[in-house]
């Protein structure tokens, strides 16, 4: 986009940085706004879903009959609260911690495509980037727990460190399984490999279907959601790492949690459930493709983005349903679930998917096609490209990346 603007207006080279900065800021602002809006919707949804599960009504007053202004009202209340910090807290780290979590939760959205062209920064290694950055969120939590000068917070932080770091292993394995099946780390290509009807989704593959459930388990655990909400287990650790946080800082932790939940749901939709490719090839039927002009292409993308968001919210509803139904596991049981079940199962799914992919391409009948070796090479190329893709700033990256990572 920045390059286009530069060409169109003929900007002097000495002002290129300004164009890049402006475009980057506008894109980041739009992204943060979109994500925050989604978080507000998630929060409202969580209240409504939990209320319906528990035979209550949930919010009914703020903003009319369905209480849809409840989230902004909550946010306003939290903003107006007194800024409390426990005596003896590490003042700098205590302040810093929520922002680390916040940044780590929001940054992955830079690489998240909502539709083929709708991505702030197209990366060939988007999945890798997203997992890596999401993993940083745990630092904020550990810092917050450590800096709070509270034993409960410390316990929460230690649990978070143990649990989230452990669950990243099976989560990563699940993603690797999909990468293996598609031969690319580019989310756009992963989603486009599932075009058409819902039986073209990755879920059709029994091993990837199993991987999907392992992924959802690990995503639930990785975002501290019940039944894995041990770091903030309110009946044991009061509020875990958030015990001493209140007001706006608490709100930031809260938003980071929901942001990550939404991110992992959207990622699940892209990896396993077709992304913007619906259960029905609706965009194809309506003729919303680039062949019918720019507007049609844009409408098709918009439809795809809505489709993806709907799937993401479906995943969120699943997580909420779990939370309001199940009791909490104990820390040793949560760790056992990870190490004894999720990791071996994810490994088995990886091997199974490898065999399945090999077999589907005629590997067992000796008819391995040329294209497949190409796909394998492609993975290596992608990994090599990753060094270029991650280092430069978002707006600069496309120029440095060699064109055509896909098989020529």
């Amino acid at each position, binding site marked *: 986009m920045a390059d286009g603007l530069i060409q169109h207006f003929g900007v002097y080279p000495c002002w290129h940085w300004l164009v890049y900065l402006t475009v980057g800021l506008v894109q980041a602002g739009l992204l943060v706004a979109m994500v925050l809006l989604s978080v507000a919707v998630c929060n409202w949804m969580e209240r409504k879903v*939990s209320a319906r*599960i*528990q*035979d*209550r009504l949930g919010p009914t007053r703020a903003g009319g009959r369905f209480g849809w202004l409840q989230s902004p009202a909550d946010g306003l209340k939290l903003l107006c609260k007194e800024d409390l910090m426990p005596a003896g807290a590490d003042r700098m780290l205590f302040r810093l911690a929520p922002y680390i979590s916040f940044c780590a939760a929001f940054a992955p959205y830079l690489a998240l495509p909502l539709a083929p062209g709708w991505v702030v920064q197209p990366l060939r290694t988007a999945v890798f980037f997203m997992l890596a950055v999401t993993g940083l969120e745990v630092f904020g939590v550990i810092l917050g727990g450590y800096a709070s000068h509270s*034993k409960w917070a410390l*316990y929460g932080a230690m649990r978070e460190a143990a649990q989230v770091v452990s669950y990243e292993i099976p989560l990563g394995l699940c993603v690797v399984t999909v990468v293996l099946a598609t031969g690319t780390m580019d989310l756009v290509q992963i989603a486009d490999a599932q075009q058409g009807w819902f039986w073209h989704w990755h879920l059709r593959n029994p091993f990837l279907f199993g991987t999907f459930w392992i992924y959802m388990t690990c995503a639930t655990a990785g975002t501290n959601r*019940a*039944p894995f*909400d*041990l770091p903030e*287990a*309110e*009946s*044991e*650790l*009061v509020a875990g790492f958030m015990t001493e946080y209140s007001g706006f800082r608490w709100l930031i932790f809260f938003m980071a949690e929901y942001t990550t939940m939404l991110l992992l749901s959207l990622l699940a939709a892209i990896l396993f459930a077709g992304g913007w490719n619906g259960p029905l090839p609706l965009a194809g039927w309506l003729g919303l493709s680039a062949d019918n002009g720019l507007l049609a292409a844009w409408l098709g993308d918009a439809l795809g983005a809505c489709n993806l968001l709907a799937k993401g919210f479906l995943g969120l509803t699943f997580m909420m349903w779990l939370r*309001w*139904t*199940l*009791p*909490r*596991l*104990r*820390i*040793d*049981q949560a760790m056992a679930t990870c190490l004894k079940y999720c990791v071996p199962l994810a490994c088995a799914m990886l091997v199974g998917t490898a065999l399945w992919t090999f077999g589907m391409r005629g590997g067992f009948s000796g008819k391995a096609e040329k294209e497949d070796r190409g796909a394998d090479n492609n993975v290596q190329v992608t990994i090599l490209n990753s060094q270029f893709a991650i280092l430069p700033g978002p707006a600069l990256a496309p120029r440095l990346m060699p064109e055509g990572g896909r098989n020529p």
Partner: protein
Amino acid sequence: MSILPTEPEIVELDLASDEMLLNMGPQHPSTHGVLRVALRTDGEVVTGLTPHIGYLHRCGEKIGENLMPRQFLPYTDRLDYLAGMNMNLGWALAVEKLLGMEPTEKARHLRVLVCELGRIASHLVAAGGYGLDLGSFTPFMWAFREREKILDLFEELCGARLTYSYITVGGVTADLPPGWLRRCADFLRQFEPVIGELHTLLTSNAIFIRRTAGIGVLGPETAVDYGCTGPVLRGSGVAWDLRRQGEPIYTRMYDGYRFEIIAQVHGRYPEDEPYPAVPAEAVLGDSWHRYYVRMLEVVQSMKLVRQAIERYGQAKGGIGEVLKPRHRLPKGAAYLETEAPKGQMGFMVVGDPGGALSPVPWRVRIRSSSFCNLSVLGELCRGCLIADVPAIVGSLDVVLGEIDR
């Protein structure tokens, strides 16, 4: 300044650097009121535990020595505030025993009716709150929804939702309002399937079983040694229920009523209702069994309420006269224990030994079931994990209003 390693404040300075002293409560979400538990932890493992009580002490017994029995009645509501009816009954029966009073048949059936409803309400709070202790919010809301309906019935009966003072010395304060029995029967009818839903959400839930089965195992001998009563004792497999084995003045109330004493004897529970099966992981006397006993007792209490409705309708006569407020107490002492939802609740009332025939008791003493049940906590929690502490405290189902009095 010398530092004594025995002082709890500085235990952390002790050489055992791996241990951390952790205060759970008195303001903690899962210590059920204002219980404070001092945990000595090694990582997540609890190596020692001391319950501290007294944050809700209101001199209840001393107040009883300055008031006439019927004036003291509202104070008994505040002992186990989740089962006010049963507390009223304990005090009323103790005074009646001292006076040699006998309530009418109709009043006796009314007492059974409201006490068993109170038991259902109390066990619902125990089961729902137990779900909350284990991190499951929904059973709590569902249980409270049903309890609300019982409280609505009680409100209609006596105007109060928590502190009833309905059962009084000599009988009950008022007869039933018109249509009440029908509404009570309606409640029971719609409540019956809800028990199954609670069983689905908690009792047979895999995570619930993993969190409670084999946790906090209380052997029958230990339970008896510590004076545990109620569902805590019966959860250890001792079939002991004062409604059958108590003193005649109390058991007479339940004469002719059919119900089972819920305890696993010879490896099985009384099987008059289709219950979810006992999971293989559960050990007799663990948290799961204590919870399960309460859930089964709810069904028994429903049966008792149904019988009480029937028998109340058949009973002749009125609800009788209650004690005159300034009635003088005779010389002598009476002590009576009743089967409250949380265990055996004992009241002692002593008339003036000097023979002054005052209407005010000379001594009042209260034996709290929760107090004895809580005392076993240190025994149960040795070597468990921090997360098990709420799981065990919740399974004991203590109420601090009753412990601290």
